[in-house]
């Protein structure tokens, strides 16, 4: 199930919230666990067992690590937990990829084609669950004695399938005690509605446009069409993913949790380094805390620093999907970040802001083309041709009449999308929110309007997949 679906909004959500608020406080984690498991099993009931296994495994390991704290046995248990978790993730997410590639070597011809379907959200909840055992080992959190609370943490439906990746020590306290108040619920509703509108009214529409532009035959693709297409994809991936995070954070608040932010207006970044401080923050943080820093972080020599960064970016790329283009995408950012760190840092500082933003966006946009290559094109060569067309190589001229017509008719939409990618709406809203009563009323009206308009678009299109759903 995804948040932007009618059955979520008009069946699952009301029942879930009614149950949640009908029971006394001490039962609420149990309700959360139960409804989260239903949420997870909705799409693929068989994989429920996988989820239950992960919960059981990390509960036991966490418990033992906590008990044997500081002894070699704790370390052994930690290693077992890490290996088993990664083995599950590796098998279900990467088996096909490795088997397909290894079969190219004659000796590995025996590897069977298992046709595994990726368990929804496995990349997200495995990382969450792992962070728990590691946090306990490091003494950053106490072992959770209550299996229900732990199960609720791993399977928590708001961020289960597409993040943000909640690290255990960030919600440790909240699993015991959290704030259920009018303030939290209403604030959560506002965040959820903003995310819902962003997803259904903007991201899905931009996505459909990208599909149209990507489908233009290479022979008739113009420079303008190539740029418009990839810009719509750029808009889609941010709006889609950040909308999911908004909805998760909003739903979290409605049931009393506060999750950390996952995006900080990445398209206003002034360098690639800055972009990655603002994009999918919970993933970057995870890799920094659990991979980069254990490897020595940046308090090491130049070459080790390069090595550590390379490891993190290979993993980041590969985390996004079992396909070579994601590895390439990771390496692309490794190269850009190293370039900025070692050479460009001083040059960039001297450039005007507008130029820095332009530089960042151009490279981010090209990055997204690599990112979507395996999804949107039939072959790498096709993606490469698309890339060429963006710079006039093999393009059918600069712009066709149809391109101009499309640009014109999507003008208003494009403007709305650009504004939605900046902090401007939020800024205006909260300045007014504090000062003016009518802004607060308008905000409430906007929430209802967002729900209504989103519902209209959902019913009328009947189609709304989440991009990050499959990672």
């Amino acid at each position, binding site marked *: 199930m995804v948040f932007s*679906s*009618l*059955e979520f*909004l*008009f*069946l699952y959500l*009301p029942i879930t919230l009614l149950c949640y608020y009908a029971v006394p406080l001490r039962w609420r984690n149990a309700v959360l666990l139960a409804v989260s498991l239903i949420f997870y099993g*909705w*799409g*693929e*009931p*068989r994989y429920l067992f996988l989820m239950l296994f992960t919960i059981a495994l990390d509960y036991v390991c966490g418990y033992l690590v906590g008990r044997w704290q500081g002894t070699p046995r704790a370390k052994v248990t930690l290693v077992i937990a890490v290996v088993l978790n990664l083995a599950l993730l590796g098998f279900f997410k990467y088996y096909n990829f490795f088997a397909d590639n290894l079969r190219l070597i004659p000796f590995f011809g025996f590897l069977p084609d298992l046709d595994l379907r990726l368990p929804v959200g496995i990349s997200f909840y495995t990382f969450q669950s792992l962070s728990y055992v590691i946090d306990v080992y490091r003494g950053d959190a106490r072992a959770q004695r209550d299996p229900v609370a732990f199960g609720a943490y791993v399977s928590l439906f708001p961020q289960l399938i597409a993040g943000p990746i909640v690290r255990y020590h960030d919600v440790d306290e909240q699993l015991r005690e959290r704030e259920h108040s*009018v*303030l939290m*619920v*209403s*604030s959560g*509703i506002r965040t959820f*509605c903003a995310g819902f509108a962003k997803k259904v009214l903007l991201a899905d529409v931009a996505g459909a446009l990208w599909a149209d532009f990507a*489908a*233009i*035959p290479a*022979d*008739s693709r113009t420079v303008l069409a190539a740029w418009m297409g990839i810009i719509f994809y750029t808009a889609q991936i941010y709006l889609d993913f950040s909308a999911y995070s908004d909805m998760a954070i909003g739903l979290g608040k409605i049931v009393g949790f*506060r999750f*950390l*932010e996952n*995006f*900080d207006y990445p398209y206003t970044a002034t360098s690639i380094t800055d972009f990655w*401080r603002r994009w999918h*923050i919970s993933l970057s*943080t995870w890799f*920094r*805390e659990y991979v980069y820093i254990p490897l020595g972080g940046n308090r090491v020599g130049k070459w080790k620093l390069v090595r550590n960064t390379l490891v993190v970016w290979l993993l980041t790329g590969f985390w996004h999907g079992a396909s070579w283009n994601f590895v390439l995408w990771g390496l692309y950012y490794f190269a850009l970040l190293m370039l900025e760190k070692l050479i460009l840092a001083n040059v960039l500082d001297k450039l005007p802001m507008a130029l820095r933003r332009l530089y960042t966006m151009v490279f981010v946009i090209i990055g997204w083309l690599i990112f979507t290559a395996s999804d949107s094109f*039939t072959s790498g060569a096709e993606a490469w041709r698309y890339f060429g067309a963006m710079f006039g190589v093999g393009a059918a001229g600069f712009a*066709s*009449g*149809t391109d101009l*017509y499309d640009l014109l*008719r*999507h*003008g*208003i*939409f494009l403007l709305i999308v650009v504004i939605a990618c900046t902090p401007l709406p939020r800024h205006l809203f*909260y300045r007014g*929110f*504090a000062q003016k009563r009518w802004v607060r*009323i308008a905000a*409430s009206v906007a*929430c*209802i309007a967002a*729900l209504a*308009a989103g*519902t*209209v*678009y959902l*019913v*009328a*299109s*009947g189609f709304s997949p989440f991009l990050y759903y499959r990672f």
Partner: protein
Amino acid sequence: MAKQHPADREADRVLAIQRQLAPRTRRGDIILIALCALFILIFAVGIYCIPHRSFSEVENSSLQTFPRVSSSGKFLDRIWDGRFMAELKDFYTDQFPLRDSLVAARAKAELLLGKGENNDVLPGKDGYLIKRIEYSETQLAQLQENLDAVTAFRAAVDLPVAFALAPRGMDVLDRCFPPLYANDRGEAVWAVIDRYAAEHPLLSLREPLRARADAGEAVWYRTDHHWTTLGAYYAYAELGSLCGFTPAPLDSFTVETASTEFLGTTYSASGFYDTPTETMEFFRWTGDEACTLEVLGGDKVISSFDGFYDRSYLEKKDKYAAFLSSNNGHVRIRDTQNADKPTMLLIKDSFAHSVVPFLAQHFNLEILDLRYYRSTTAAFLAENEVDSVLILCGLDSMATSNLLESLPVGME
């Protein structure tokens, strides 16, 4: 521990503002919560309180009703493999309260946002709804395969083969395009057709129909992807020299108004539900009632009519299906008064349906739609005597289905 991210500081600040204001905003917050809850509950309960439809008239498609729940083991199977959930999802989309109004509202909203179209349907001049169609690389390859199949068939068969192509609405309705629309991308497919036509005999019906449309004649339905009966007549007239007959003059036909309530496929896709209905006509000729139409499945006659029309469809949404009783694998047309007409094998899609009544003046017809026909054309020709072959298909089905691919199968 890592230091706090600026975005989290900002979120904290925002929540702090809300908290600080909480005493003053509490009443408003409660109202917001109540309104949201009310909104969700109205539809959550509403969907179970309204009558459910199994067919949508305006959208011309069947709808999912509430998925079956039975106490047998089957139900658990359907949960286990996810079928129940998939059907429930469709149920929510298809039976949602006020569905038709919501679809129409979206169409209006798209126009208000200046998008100029909805679901690829352009609201054109004179009330025309024009479907905007652009093909992908794969679809152009599909078109090429269908064209190549005709070439292979022509080489293998010992009969005169005529090949005619029906255009799409957007190919002939230039006159009705919205003012800012430019058709370059939609035009790209004609490069493939022109390349083929330069080397192989192909009658494109685009130019003659466009000339008629430009002159203001109603050759295309305003709300459907097919040509009108008048358009079909002009197509028939063009086919004369190709198929060796002299077309009957237009004024030799009596026009029968079949329906004034027609709303076609483009209308259904558009969401512009306030579009006025249009008229569908049958062009009758003296003696056409002596023709019989048989729908065949293998050797068996599934149904038969006098004339070419299945008038039961005139009461339904899909009125164009009255021509030749919708899509069938094999249809046979015989003139009971005049048995010595030559027999034509017609390989076709639905564009031919409204042309058949004209052709039947000159031919007995064996009509195959290879998408539904269970056997092969080769097997058909081995068992049946025909004098000529006409392939008459719409450009769109050639690019979006394997319509003709099986044509040369088994020849030679």
